[in-house]
């Protein structure tokens, strides 16, 4: 997420007054010692008491106590290396009972174990330039999507980080956001500062097997069926749609948490566009 949105929500609630409700400050994450905050992420499962925040070169795990009114720094880790290392983005993995966090700094993606606050894996030079955003596949553990200033979207298997599983190169400028659909993880949404939002269909690496579920009762039977299935409809990754409604850079895209077929994108000029997955594709996935 863009930097300016996050701190705004936590540090200066008085700025974002709206006519409907006033936001009220529950708790202050004291980051004076660590520099400006780049990203805050709640534990995806569990009781919502744990928050990770990324500040400059530190990764901080907060414990919210007393009905979230007080935050205690539970543990922290920091990047070490030459030069000024700064986190740009981070995501909490929905798998492994919330013990994994992935962060991005410059061109590197790192995975952390929140229990020991130690690094699990590290993808050096994941992108040619700055990594802007990360997202975990909600249905397939170990699968991670990343995007960055090299206009690429890459999909990684965190067990083998030597090579990306897949690379998309459809945008013509920095890709700011990448988001998996919460329930159908073949749908991947990307927003870029070339003012486009692209919805891709990543069938080949999705958790949903293409077409019908194959009953693996018999190996030979399966082998018989496979070429048949291939000849019918080989799974192909494709761009479903490119949305060009925005006139300026798109800085945020996300899926609706209520309706899996709905998504919104926000651009610099303040335009919020809500789109729906094409009906034909929706039926194709559902039926």
């Amino acid at each position, binding site marked *: 997420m*863009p*930097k*300016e949105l996050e701190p705004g929500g936590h540090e200066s609630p008085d700025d974002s007054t709206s006519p409907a409700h006033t936001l009220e400050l529950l708790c202050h994450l004291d980051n004076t010692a660590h520099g400006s905050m780049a990203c805050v992420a709640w534990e995806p499962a569990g009781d919502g008491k744990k928050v990770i925040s990324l500040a400059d070169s530190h990764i901080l795990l907060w414990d919210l106590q007393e009905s979230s009114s007080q935050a205690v720094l539970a543990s922290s880790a920091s990047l070490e290396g030459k030069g000024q290392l700064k986190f740009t983005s981070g995501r909490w993995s929905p798998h492994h009972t919330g013990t994994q966090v992935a962060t991005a700094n410059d*061109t590197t993606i790192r995975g952390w174990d929140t229990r020991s606050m130690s690094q699990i894996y590290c993808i050096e*030079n994941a992108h*040619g*330039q700055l990594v802007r955003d990360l997202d975990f596949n909600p249905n397939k553990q170990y699968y991670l999507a990343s995007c960055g200033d*090299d*206009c690429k979207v890459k999909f990684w298997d965190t067990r083998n980080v030597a090579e990306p599983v897949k690379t998309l190169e459809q945008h*013509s*400028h*920095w890709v700011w956001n990448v988001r998996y659909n919460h329930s159908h993880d073949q749908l991947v949404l990307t927003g870029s*500062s*070339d*003012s486009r939002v692209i919805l891709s269909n990543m069938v080949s690496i999705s958790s949903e097997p293409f077409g019908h579920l194959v009953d693996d009762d018999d190996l030979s039977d399966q082998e018989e069926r496979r070429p048949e299935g291939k000849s019918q409809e080989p799974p192909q990754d494709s761009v479903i749609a490119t949305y*060009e409604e925005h*006139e*300026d*850079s798109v800085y945020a895209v996300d899926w609706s948490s209520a309706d899996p077929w709905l998504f919104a994108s926000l651009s*610099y*000029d*303040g*335009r919020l566009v809500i789109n729906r997955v094409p009906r034909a594709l929706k039926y194709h996935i559902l039926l």
Partner: protein
Amino acid sequence: PASRLWAAVGAMAAAAAGPGTGSGPGDSPEGPEAEAPERRRKAHGMLKLYYGLSEGETAGRPPGSDPLDPTDLNGAHFDPEVYLDKLRRECPLAQLMDSETDMVRQIRALDSDMQTLVYENYNKFISATDTIRKMKNDFRKMEDEMDRLATNMAVITDFSARISATLQDRHERITKLAGVHALLRKLQFLFELPSRLTKCVELGAYGQAVRYQGRARAVLQQYQHLPSFRAIQDDCQVITARLAQQLRQRFREGGSGAPEQAECVELLLALGEPAEELCDEFLAHARGRLEAELQSLEAELGPSPPAPDVLEFTDLGGSGFVGGLCQVASAYQELFAAQGPAGAEKLAAFARELGGRYFALVERRLAQEQGSGDNSLLVRALDRFHRRLRAPGALLAAAGLAEAATEIVERVARERLGHHLQGLRAAFLGCLTDVRQALAAPRLAGKEGPGLAELLANVASSILSHIKASLAAVHLFTAKEVSFSNKPYFRGEFCSQGVREGLIVGFIRSMCQTAQSFCDSPGEKGGATPPALLLLLSRLCLDYETATISYILTLTDEQFLVQDQSPVTPVSTLCAEARETARRLLTHYVKVQGLVISQMLRKSVETRDWLSTLEPRNVRAVMKRVVEDTTAIDVQVGLLYEEGVRKAQSSDSSKRTFSVYSSSRQQGRYAPSYTPSAPMDTNLLSNIQKLFSERIDVFSPVEFNKVSVLTGIIKISLKTLLECVRLRTFGRFGLQQVQVDCHFLQLYLWRFVADEELVHLLLDEVVASAALRCPDPVPMEPSVVEVICERG
């Protein structure tokens, strides 16, 4: 009617005078001369009818004249009545008169002709009659003489019969005596045989002995029931056995050469020894000798002694082993021809096995040769090798030695091609290394770039010369005087698939791939590859696309008259590949250079504290650096690429600056108050502005010219600046600094791009974004901005 009459007379005259005088008066067209061909023609006509030719086509008759026409004066079916009728009916009086006079004149002429003919032939008639009469007299005399001859002959026959009857008796006796004499001589030979044989054996004249034995054997066999003959036979057998033993002994000793051995075998065969056994033994001996040859060859191969050059080696093998094999084969075929297919099969297996070992040795030697660059020696060695093996190949077609040899030669040729391809690749990589070094060196010396065009020319020419050298080297394989050059592989597949596809097309492809790999290298971040190298490679590929590829392929096709019909990669495909490579390289160059400038701009924006900066006094150094770098890139690209087209420029490029500041000032007025309507207005404003401008594709493919390249780089840089500015918060002076910087950039960057509108647009955006990110947006006076920029 006159002409028909004449025809009859003429025919008579011709018949009487014989064929010689058939040519009568030659001046009349309707004369007998015309009649004779007429008849001939008839006969021809029938023949032609028989052979299916149409009568109308026969020569002579004018087309369209019907032979059956009754009005044809000269025709066979002429009917005077019809003719007259026709004349009377059709012709006017004048013409009738004319034809009458004409006819009269013709008749008169014919009359006189006939008279002359009769006079001329009269004498000939008379002399012919005389001759016939004389002949009759002569024949009568001859008959009498013949009768006398017959009676004389009868008398002679009678006498001869009587003489033979008297001699009959004596003749029979003489015959009998002669028979007895022969028998006695034979018997004497038989009785003397044992002693003769012993003598022969003692003297070592085995051939003689075997001949005697052969002569006597059948007789002894026949009369063995007689005791005396039995004794002789026994003696002979004993001696023969000794003889055979001696022969075998000599054969086994093996010291003597192949011809002597062959002689031994021949004699043994004549002695009736079992052929199969002999043939095995013969081959075993031959094997021993040939194996010795092979071992000596292997010793040459050995790792320790300096191996002789490949030509010497094949010569050695050719004369030693192959020559030996030839001798063995020919001797064997002479000796054991009676063995039939089984024997031939044995020989073939023998040759196959030893040949296989020989080939293995040769291949080992040739493999040692793979590394060397000297093709001519190798080709000559292969030529000798192949030529030597053609003789035994003819001798032992079943063993397939010639095919195997050809295969080896083909394999070596293929490996050679691979070797040359490797060589070319290495040469290309070497060139690239040279270029890298050359690019790195002058930078240290302080002057950069001037040699870029020169470097390009160097690389291009050196690659071309390498290609030509390889082609020349490979061409040796197809030279006319080389014995294997007319094999189908070398005429077809080698030229088209091997040289053209494998070597040349393969090299161009690999060159493109190598070049493309620079684009995909993970070193995207900085410069594993110097950008100048990218630029140079891109230009190289483009040159290949426009001219070099077609030149090289034409050269290849000319040198190796490609006869093979198999499909080859067309020039256009290769050109397209080269062009694609050039495009990718150039795009990558733009990206890399854009990234360098972007990083500079990004650092400059991100590391500064924009909220508490002082009032701008001059342009920031970074911006000057950006302009300098862009100029340097412009110079660099200009060395290799043409200028390119740019959009028509407005005469006053500074005019637009005012609109920028007016718009940003407007925003400035609204921005501080947080009323909901204000952002609406600014949004509306910027949106309306954007409605009229086209979307900018930042990382778009570039064209092959300087302006397009520079436009790409500047687009990337400015877009980065824009995005970075949007992530920061500016104080009043921060905003003003941005304003100054942008104005400065605009003053200098517009000249590089295709459409200066683009620079304006992006810089406007930067300033507008900065204004939006500023809590106190008070822009600087445009005049002050200008003054600062001019001073800087």
